[in-house]
């Protein structure tokens, strides 16, 4: 049974740092582009 008093803590520091890191979003954007290209090619 989950504790009703329990509130989830803040996300770890590295998670927040990553989401604020432009270098995280560049590979993600390229990945989405690649999936779209694959859809066209296939």
């Amino acid at each position: 049974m989950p504790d009703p008093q329990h509130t989830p803590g803040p996300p770890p520091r590295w998670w927040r740092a990553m989401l604020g890191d432009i270098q995280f979003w560049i590979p993600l954007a390229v990945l989405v582009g690649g999936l779209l290209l694959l859809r066209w090619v296939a």
Partner: protein
Amino acid sequence: MGGVGAATPIAPLRLKQLQAVGIFSGFAAGAWLGAAEAPTKVVTLGISPVTISLVMVLGVFLARWSLPALIRGTANLGLDVRRAPHLVVWALIAGCLWAVANTLTIFAIRDIGLSIAFPLWNTNSLLGILWGALLFNELRGAGRVRRLGVVGGAIVMFGGAVLLALASPTQAPGGDAVRGIAAALGAGALWGTMYIPYRKAYLTGMNPLSFVTFFTIGELAMMAGLAFAYLGGPAGTWTELGRARDVLFWLLLGGFVWVVGDLFQQYAAKYVGIGRGIPLSNTNQLWGLLWGILVFGELAGSSHGVYAQVVGGSIVMALGAAAIALSTAPGAEHLRWQDAARREAARYGVDLDYVAARLSGLDPDARRGRTARDWLIVAAATAVFVLFLAGAQAPQLEIDYAWAVGLTLAMLGLLGGCGVALWRVTRFG
């Protein structure tokens, strides 16, 4: 955590050793990555490109868990993750990028042929240089001559690639050339960007053998998703795998060989950066050509002009690679790398001393030796390969076995030589 003072220059002799082993790794990567493309030749036998990519990724998965377990032991994985947990996410993204890129390359091979597709996706090196300079201080402080050596070398390599592409109308297998070229260039963009996570991991101190074990989970998950989407769900995928059962072993083997090359590529990315490491490992195109021409008779019946273009393009590529190999990073540039590493450490809260030690090729807290779990992983992976070998049939292709043996011996020589060098200098750190 260490202080945030000025970076300490690495000893010149140590830097020289690390650069040399990184350059050597880049060339060894080229040989093994080039050979790994050879099994994809079976795509011409009517097997779906997605099936080929999926099976190769299964081989990659087996190798990415078994080889690190054999070389370093999995006990160190937990240590690396506790130090830099964010790198697990980066490794998963890189694995997804690899899987999509690899699938695109197989469509490219189907449409425009291996010899032409190779140089097109190897334009990833130009992108790698751009990301390396923009994001990780590569080539900063290198001096004009070295910068020219790297950028000029990569452009010369690209010129060689264009020469090879000019031969395309006479040897394309008859597929849709526009889609084939788009697929190959797209794969280059994905692979070029995949090196952002690589470099980030190594600047932050993760061991290449740890990085690849997480990388492969993203790779396998993405590839399974693609297979289900394009092959009609799990049932369709299973049917396709059944149709390809005679050649499953060769594709698994292709994935395994690729991982050996990729491990060397990881060490090259770590010790000479992505701006130099990617172009050097892109000498895989020359090895791919050797396999294509000598073993599979890919250009048989072509005119002398086509051969001249291919040989000329290959020589130009080799000259570009030589220029890069001679333009190693000097101490001033390495200091700028350390600046980038310290920025990463500060952003993600990683211990600075740990980052500095790992960037110098040291692995002070590593646990030596293998556990029973490691041997179990190695045994299970070996068993899978043996199982598929038992059901394998030789692909119905014209193969020159004498050249295949000769090229394999050359690859094994590079494996032994570079493996020993890496062990002596970094203990696979």
